[in-house]
């Protein structure tokens, strides 16, 4: 009999030990999980987007589409050149612009603008877009991603900070915008 009591006593301690470890593990899981998910939660709390200047409006002649570069608003010391980003600026007229991400709306490769044919072409899977960013042909399901922009004191700024991806909005059925090019 005494043996049994010792055993169950030890057994209880073991179970308590497991429970104790479980509690500690749960408590530690909170900071570990929050650390792991910080890149998601941070974006949710403050948002990654902010206004970045692209330069003076004069750099972008009316009726033309030019490449501009900007620095990502969030920079970490180990980022190197990766925070420098390119975008295509189309100056329609006056203060009317369109600023496109270089990332193809298909899978993110850098599209190039060809003024001669008036097309953006993607080198990866053959996506093509018209001058207003709408889909022309190829695998993309939508037009180019556009940044919000504002013009103030002859300076054009865009709202940037996140790499555009097709996202769940890349619907299962293709949606084509009608060509609105001038």
């Amino acid at each position, binding site marked *: 009999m005494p043996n049994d009591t010792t055993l169950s006593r030890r057994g209880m301690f073991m179970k308590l030990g497991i429970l104790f470890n479980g509690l500690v593990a749960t408590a530690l899981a909170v900071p570990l999980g929050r650390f792991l998910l910080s890149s998601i939660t941070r974006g949710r709390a403050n948002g990654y987007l902010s206004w970045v200047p692209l330069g003076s409006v004069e750099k972008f002649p009316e009726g033309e589409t030019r490449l501009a570069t900007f620095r990502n608003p969030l920079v970490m010391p180990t980022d190197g*050149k990766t925070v420098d980003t390119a975008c295509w600026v189309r100056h329609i007229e006056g203060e009317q612009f369109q600023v496109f991400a270089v990332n193809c709306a298909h899978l993110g490769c850098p599209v190039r603008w060809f003024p001669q044919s008036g097309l953006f072409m993607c080198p990866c899977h053959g996506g093509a877009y018209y001058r207003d960013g709408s889909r022309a042909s190829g695998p993309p399901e939508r037009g180019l991603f556009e940044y919000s922009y504002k013009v103030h004191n002859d300076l054009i700024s865009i709202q940037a900070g996140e790499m555009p991806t097709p996202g*769940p909005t890349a619907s299962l059925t293709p949606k084509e915008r009608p060509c609105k090019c001038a």
Partner: protein
Amino acid sequence: MQMRLISRIGEWFDRRLQLAAPIREAAEHPVPRNTASWWYVFGSAALIVFLLQFVTGILLAFVYVPSAGEAWSSLQALNHEISLGWFIRAMHGWGSNFMVAIVLIHMMQVFLFGAYKFPRELTWILGVFLLLMTLGMAFSGQVLRFDQDAYWGLGIGASIASRVPIIGPAIVKLMLGGPIIAGATLSRFFALHVFVIPGMLIGFVALHLLMVLKLGINEWPMPGRIVRRSTYLAEYHALTKTDGAPFAPYAIWKDLFFAACILLAVAACALYFGPFGPGGKPDPTIIQTVPKPDYFFLWLYALLSLLPPSLETPALLIGPVLGIIGLLLLPFLSGEGEKSWRRRPIAVLTVLMIAIILGTFTHLAEYTPWSPQMNAWSGAPVPKRFLHGTTALERQGALVFQEKQCRNCHSLEGIGGQRGPSLDSVAVRLTQDQLIRQVIQGGGNMPAYGNNLNPAETTALVAFLETLHPARQAAARDASRDVILSVRQ
């Protein structure tokens, strides 16, 4: 005297470690005689290449800097400044290609030999995970070679991940470690490539090997020798008794020879071809780049170009899941029955079909017929014979043809893009009206050029296109026009 000293030292260790007996037992366990075959060497070859990757990977980590700002230059230093750095990089890169290839061959052999059937289901399942981890290592390794291909490859990975319903954007941020591809992205792929996946690989390889030892190597499949759950174990045991031989040295010598040959082959490729890249600097503002994945993902690159847009997201998200579930369920769906490929035509056809599909897609991805050739319009002149004896309007049309970059997608005499059909004899296929319509409205995967051509340019271009027909074959004509013209007369 010396021998005695060595054996006494050995005994001293073994009294404490007590490993000699189990190791000898494992090495000398009886295997069916006919498994001592050159077909059975791929598993051990995969293991030896894994060990090679392990060693060369550690050596590379002595120099490599997992920082987006410095990774590329540290690879350059390995290539050019550190003695034999290029060779270690080349061995690691070629080792990776060999590993994927050997794992695939091993898997194919196991499948065709019915080795996944009872009682080796779990060995197969662990093997499926080992394949996924090997592919994970290949992809993350490509990311660590932090060049333009790595950068844009990450963009493609993120774009695919973003398509997951609801949580897509969150997965992207988790994968990239932030809102863009940057330092945090490289750091976490470094952690995956160097700690997480290798750690899992070691554990899974150990279990995989343990199960091979516990359950015995799959016997050579004989047509008509049926696997039954109720009798298999006794039959296998009897086989190793009646027609068995100790694994070492009876079968192991082939593994050893093949392993050494594979290592030599990796070294030979490394010496001859040298290291992979790094390609251009990972600077996102340099957009004059044509990103391409490494060899073993080329088929996927082709598939992504050829899938119809409406099928792409479901195919990308559901396809891999179904494929993996299918592989995992395989031993449960056909855990018994014939093992021999001679009696399993569907298995043989499946392997052939997969090999042909992957081979075809890989071949297509090597010359990317779906991509416009960005410099064909300025680099390849219109061949002289198309201009000989043409009118001024037609020559003007040829100019429009080049200037508007039709050449980027359409070839003349085989030079130019292959995105659209070759135009060598387009006039035979399309009448004047059809040409005008096609140029202005596009369609059939061709953009509309109506907004980019004025009427004079369109007229000239179509006049030129109408001359594109073989000498002895007339251009297509709209017959109804003749009727109308004849009525007028």
